């Protein structure tokens, strides 16, 4: 039997395989608490490459993969238990739509009793009939082919979650709601240990954006020509499912943390009880960053963007903003740092846009670089064009070294740049603009680049705010206190 670990960290989609904000946060978080042992449950799908991009810290005792599209075949269907298939699938349908904690709890119990898996629930004739009923209710007259694949993925993912091997841990820590929260909820039921839920962004909001740009979702025309009918679309089935996952996660979590205040409103909307809510921001080594002197080397002004080249970062808006910025600051150079392999099609479209706009000489795509700090120290301003963010590490690092920022009004960017109620550090460390607005972004960048004194003041504000509120030692203490409280709790379910 594996040794009991202090914390089981449940992460969806990234760590230790993909580089990204949450994965980097998790890596840094676990390194910052070497006295604790961690077991990582990495949630992904079988098609995702599982080549590690992180060297896991020594206090991570094991990494367990939970593949959402791989679930056990389970018990073979017999005449005796065939009638239970419909009941279990009805519970699954309710879990995907209503998302109440009690439904999920009953589902876990029924799956334990019946031993049903893919064979009975998805590949059998009773399973098919139950799917037809779900189709009639969720996507009546819609394309059965699309519903079939969506249903199959969602049911399989639920089965994968409730059959995931759970490590022995004193606390389960899900880094998001969604499937991570679902695994955490299952762990709470099965292992009867406390669940800490940390949300960086709001999962349902991020999925809403993903679904809005998903090329495999489209209006099926199931509502016919009647404009008064608002047909149920596949997109809403997925959104309902993600919202349900959040509700289930909130129901089972002992403590729900987020990084900034604006998120708490969303969490409340999705059913998170007030008494469970806490704010713990991202932490960075502000002391270390502040010690690096910023270089005032002669040369063209540099605008830096750090982020994956994916639609959610809206790199195309940034490229268009640079085009406009060149009219105001002709010698400006834009540097984009971030991997392009996650969405090669989007990355190619960005490069094509640069080519079409004729600004190839002014924009550099550096891809993944080993030392981002070097670029932060030489840049004049950091730009963030995302249409969704939580609390970007890049922004905090820029803040810590005193680099002004122009960011879209997403996540906690406004809080970091302009401060919040009760913030002892007054002043703005940059400019906040509306998302998807190249002109506003260009004008904000130009105003900072063209005014040296303002740039310097903003940098100073950013540095002080980072040191005061986002220092990793402070954040580390907050989490360790939380862990200590949770670990002290006796084993119980509710």
């Amino acid at each position: 039997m594996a040794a009991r670990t202090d914390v089981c960290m449940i992460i969806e989609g990234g760590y230790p395989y993909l580089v990204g904000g949450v994965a980097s946060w998790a890596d840094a978080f676990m390194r910052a608490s070497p006295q604790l042992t961690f077991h990582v449950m990495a949630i992904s799908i079988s098609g995702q490459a599982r080549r590690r991009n992180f060297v896991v810290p020594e206090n991570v005792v094991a990494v367990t993969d939970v593949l959402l599209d791989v679930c056990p075949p389970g018990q073979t269907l017999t005449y005796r238990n065939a009638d239970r298939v419909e009941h279990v699938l009805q519970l699954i349908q309710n879990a995907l739509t209503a998302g109440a904690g009690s439904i999920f709890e009953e589902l876990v119990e029924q799956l334990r009793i019946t031993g049903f898996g893919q064979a009975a629930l998805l590949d059998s004739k009773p399973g098919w009939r139950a799917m037809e009923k779900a189709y009639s209710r969720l996507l009546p007259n819609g394309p059965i082919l699309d519903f079939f694949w969506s249903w199959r993925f969602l049911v399989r993912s639920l089965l994968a979650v409730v059959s995931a091997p759970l490590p022995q841990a004193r606390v389960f820590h899900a880094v998001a709601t969604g499937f991570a929260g679902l695994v955490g909820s299952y762990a709470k039921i099965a292992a009867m240990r406390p669940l800490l839920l940390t949300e960086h962004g709001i999962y349902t909001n991020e999925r809403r954006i993903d679904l809005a740009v998903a090329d495999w979702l489209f209006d099926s025309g199931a509502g016919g020509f009647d404009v008064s009918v608002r047909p149920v679309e596949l997109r809403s089935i997925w959104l309902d499912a993600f919202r349900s996952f959040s509700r289930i996660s909130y129901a089972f979590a002992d403590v729900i943390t987020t990084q900034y205040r604006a998120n708490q409103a969303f969490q409340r909307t999705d059913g998170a009880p007030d008494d469970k809510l806490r704010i713990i921001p991202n932490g960075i080594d502000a002391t270390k960053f502040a010690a690096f002197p910023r270089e005032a080397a002669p040369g063209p002004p540099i605008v830096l963007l750090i982020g994956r080249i994916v639609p959610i970062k809206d790199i195309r808006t940034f490229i268009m903003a640079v085009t406009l910025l060149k009219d105001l600051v002709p010698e400006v150079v834009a540097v984009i740092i971030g991997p392009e392999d996650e969405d090669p099609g989007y990355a190619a479209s960005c490069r094509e846009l640069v080519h079409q706009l004729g600004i190839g000489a002014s924009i550099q795509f550096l891809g993944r670089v080993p030392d981002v700090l070097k670029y932060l120290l030489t840049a004049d301003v950091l730009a963030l064009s995302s249409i969704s963010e939580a609390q970007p590490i890049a922004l905090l690092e820029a803040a810590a070294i005193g680099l002004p920022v122009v960011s879209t009004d997403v996540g906690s960017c406004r809080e970091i740049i302009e401060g919040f109620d009760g913030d002892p550090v007054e002043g703005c460390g940059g400019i906040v603009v509306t998302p998807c607005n190249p002109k506003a972004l260009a004008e904000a960048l130009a105003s900072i680049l063209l005014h040296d004194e303002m740039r310097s003041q903003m940098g100073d504000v950013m540095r002080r705010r980072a040191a005061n509120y986002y220092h990793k030692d402070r954040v580390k203490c907050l989490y360790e206190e939380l862990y200590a409280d949770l670990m002290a709790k006796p084993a119980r379910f509710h």
Partner: protein
Amino acid sequence: MPLRGALRRPYGEARSLSLITRIMTSVNITIESMTRQGSISSVFGAYLYAALLVAGPWIFTVLGLFFLSAAACDGSCPDLTIFRSIIIYNSMYALIITSPLAFFSGRYVSEQLHRGCNDSVFYALVLSLLIFALLSIGLAVPFYFWATTLNATERIASIYNIVMIGCAWLIIPFIGALRAYNAVLVAFGAAGLSMLVLGCMLHDPSATSLLLAFNGSFAIANSILLATVVLRFGTEITIDSLLTNGLRRRWELPAAGMAYALGLWVDKIIMWYSAPSGGLIVAGALHTMPSYDTAMFWSQLSSIPVIAVFFVHVETRFSALIQKFHARLQQRASLRELNEIIRKIGTHVLSNLVGLFAALVIVAGMMILLSFVFMTQLGLRPAYMVVLRVSLCSMTFYTSAMFCFNFLLHLDLRRPALLIVLTYLGLNSVLTLAFLSFGPDLYGYGNLVASAVSLLVGLGLLLKELPWLHYHAFIINNASL
């Protein structure tokens, strides 16, 4: 960044759902398009092509026996019985050994051609022929050399005959996949002509010369068929592991082939070796029972026109409906629309099964009436008439059961299809043995009951599975899962 990959496209393509259907449809559409050309020759050609594709070597064998018996011997050659016994044994052996190979390689070749992968087609043919040759060396050669009292030339001619019949059965699926209907018509036409000419040239022939005439004619047909395959695919052998891997995945196909062929012959084998009277033993080991065999052969031959109608019209329309089902599915139809198509398919299948059964009853009735007039010409004797009538009734049930078998295979429902032929094989064995004890008056009744029950099983399976067409398309036959 949760679900990065998963939300891109959480599912595979349903591309493979209708592969089998499309393959079969394309073959049938070729036949049906011939019937639409408007001329009598093209309509006749279509039916002949369908008949030859389904049972070419067997038709040729029965007609060959008839021609050579009538033209060369005038029914009085002393060696004619030996010749007939050898042909019957070889036909049985070749069908049983080649059916599993033909069922499997036929499906493999159709899929390969549909995917545009021609490289390994010749390899599949060579492999089939090689397996057949090895099995023949292991089974047929020892049988003829050690179990029979034939002379050396007769033995060699007999083994040569096995090779000819077996090769024809093995090449036919490749020709079907190629849709080379002209090659089929020319091959069997030339072979038939050759047999007629050789039959007229022979006078008081020995078993060896009859076999050589038969083999020579078969060699002509096989040469044309093989040349067609070689011209199309060349002779390069490209080994494809998918062929052997597919055997593990689709073991039901060769199993169905084996059960189908054994079922067809098992009652005859039982009659040859167990019937208390009417049996004939030649060359030491060749047991036959002319009164039973002749009646059975003629009744089976009489079903060929109805089988041709099935392949030319019924299965083609069935394929078109199935293809429409898959096309609408891919075009994101609603479940209601798919259910509507499924209802149409069910109606088509049932109404045509009834129609074909009625046609088979009419054919059986006509054969009974004709047998009174052409009794001698058909090689029948008064003693055979009871068996002929029973076997004609069996034929109506059995052929209808095989239509169900074909529908199920068309939907790639291999296990239900296997169940039909296994039912027939099992019941035909048990009941034929059981009815033996009731004496000659009930010869053939075991086969009759087995055929009737097999039809009921086939019909039941078809009615059970047809409403689940979407389930089969999405779950059972979906290679994306």
